[in-house]
């Protein structure tokens, strides 16, 4: 990210000071939400008691240790990674497609991942025991991740000709490929039994309930790398807002920006969807909120999206595990319940602007 020198004269409409303030507030919020999230849950385990136990040199009770270290901590970290990955992917896609409605679904990540998950859930049981034994519960995330990558790369190849990727072709081919994939998914679902259908439904609603250390260690590096590398694309995306030709004229290597943005999105969203299922709307709501608050400059937008996405998902997850405790509300329901109405509100507010 390029530092903005403080003594630069402020240009009219420059909102970078607000963006900087937002960033600081979000960092504080993220830290506070993480601690809160660690201390909050259905069981009686409290963070303060655990900390005072530790300070007094006492061993933690088995249940406290399991709840804090094996259930809540990986879940909080997973929430941060998934939220950041989804929100940053959303911001990247909207920048790349120059369309406020773009989300990672456009490059086939979601349809590919869900076909992968469906295949793994329905046919996983038919695998030889030796193969099933190696993968265990990794099977669904791994196949979902592979599915998202294969789809995105296929789309990318369809849309790229003579070294130039057409985002319009990608969008249209994405719709066609999505239709094919969902038809295949339908065929597989026909063969599913009752309990597999239940599993599919719950997968589609999204959840962080299955977070554990092995899963976190496998998926988090991919998401962290993608989120941290995203801000390097900020200048390119800013220039792309003027149109591809204009961006090229100001010296941006447009094709490189496209390649990297698409790969980043595929990696981040693929990993996020693989471990948490279908969590909707984070990728659309978070960047929009930030554009309203502090402007569309990608130099701040990408960083802040990561932070706000993480904060939002932590709160959604807290709601998901406490609202109907000890049972759990799938987190996709929570994000869609908040995200859907919010999105409508944005549409209504900007009706004039979006009326094309």
């Amino acid at each position: 990210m390029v530092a903005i020198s403080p003594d630069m004269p402020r240009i009219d409409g420059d909102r970078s000071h607000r963006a900087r303030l937002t960033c600081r507030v979000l960092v504080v919020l993220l830290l506070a939400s993480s601690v809160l999230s660690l201390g909050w849950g259905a069981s009686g385990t409290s963070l303060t008691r655990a900390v005072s136990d530790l300070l007094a040199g006492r061993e933690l009770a088995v249940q406290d240790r399991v709840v804090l270290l094996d259930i809540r901590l990986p879940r909080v970290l997973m929430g941060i990674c998934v939220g950041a990955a989804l929100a940053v992917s959303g911001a990247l896609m909207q920048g790349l497609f120059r369309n406020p409605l773009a989300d990672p679904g456009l490059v086939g990540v979601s349809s590919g991942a869900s076909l992968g998950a469906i295949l793994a859930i329905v046919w996983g049981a038919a695998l030889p025991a030796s193969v099933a034994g190696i993968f265990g519960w990794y099977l669904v995330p791994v196949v979902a991740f592979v599915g998202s990558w294969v789809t995105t790369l296929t789309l990318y190849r369809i849309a790229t000709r003579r070294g130039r990727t057409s985002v319009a072709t990608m969008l249209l081919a994405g719709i066609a490929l999505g239709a094919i994939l969902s038809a295949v998914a339908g065929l597989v679902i026909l063969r599913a039994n009752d309990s597999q259908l239940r599993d599919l439904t719950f997968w589609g609603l999204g959840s962080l309930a299955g977070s554990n250390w092995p899963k976190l260690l496998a998926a988090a590096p991919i998401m962290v790398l993608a989120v941290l590398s995203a801000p390097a694309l900020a200048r390119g995306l800013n220039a792309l807002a003027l149109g591809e030709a204009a961006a090229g004229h100001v010296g941006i290597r447009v094709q490189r920006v496209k390649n990297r943005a698409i790969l980043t999105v595929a990696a981040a969203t693929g990993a996020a969807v693989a471990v948490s299922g279908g969590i909707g709307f984070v990728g659309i709501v978070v960047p929009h909120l930030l554009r309203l608050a502090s402007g569309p400059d990608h130099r701040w937008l990408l960083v802040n999206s990561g932070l706000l996405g993480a904060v939002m998902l932590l709160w959604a997850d807290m709601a998901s595990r406490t609202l109907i405790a000890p049972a759990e509300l799938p987190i996709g329901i929570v994000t869609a319940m908040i995200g859907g109405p919010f999105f409508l509100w944005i549409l209504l507010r900007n009706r004039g602007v979006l009326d094309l």
Partner: protein
Amino acid sequence: MKRLALALLLAAPAHAETYPEASRVLAIGGAVTELVYALGEQDRLVGRDTTSNWPPEANALTDVGYMRALSPEGVLSVSPDLILAEEGAGPPEAVSVLKSANLPYVTVAEGYDAAGVLAKVDAVAEALGVPEKGHALHEKLAAQLTDAESKAKAVGQPKKVLFVLSLQGGRVMAGGTGTSADGIIRLAGAQNALADIQGYKPLTDEAVIKAAPDVILMMQRGDAKADATANGGDSLEAAKQSAQTMPAIAQTPAGRDGRIVIMDGLKLLGFGPRTGEAAIELHGLVYGGS
């Protein structure tokens, strides 16, 4: 393949797992909860899952969520000292976390036949450490099942029964092989009209006619409104009426003679302590009287 994986899974905890001291038992799965009640050990229960609705008292227990979508912390929050779960409880990640919490976790294998139910009784009784009560329930259930079996054997030409899960929107959702509906139809000495389809599948009208069932079996879900919408009418009688007048069903022997049977869903399909009764009751309803 599936069976091999299962065998490997079951091979590990083959030694006796018995927890007579457990006083805070969490039952996951409708049949398991029913079995705990049938063994008279309900005072030791602290929680149940969403699928455990029988006996009605069970509804007063804390509900930890749907058995295939458990949240590990939610389960721990009722502080159980024994988890008795039906096969298929999950997700697997949640189960592995629960096992790492040093909590006794007993999986009760599923089985849609007489041996399967009796094995469930034994497994639950052993886990709870009540062998005498388990033995008594085993004997009682075995006697009922033998009774059902002898009744079934006395039938010369088995009737074909079609289990209809729902009739929503005029579409017949029916039970093929490998389902609990298939299991209970066999126990009742009848024949599943859908022998060449696996699982619960939507049927075309022609497939219904081709299956030519002598009896249509539907279930009552205990909630009048849900029943009404699922079975396509606003009461049980109306549901029977509307099923009978559906063009596809009207063409079958069952539809022509109006032989539509409705039974309590959990009792019929639960494969718990009421399975013996259910088989005899279904036999009576299918073959009339006796």
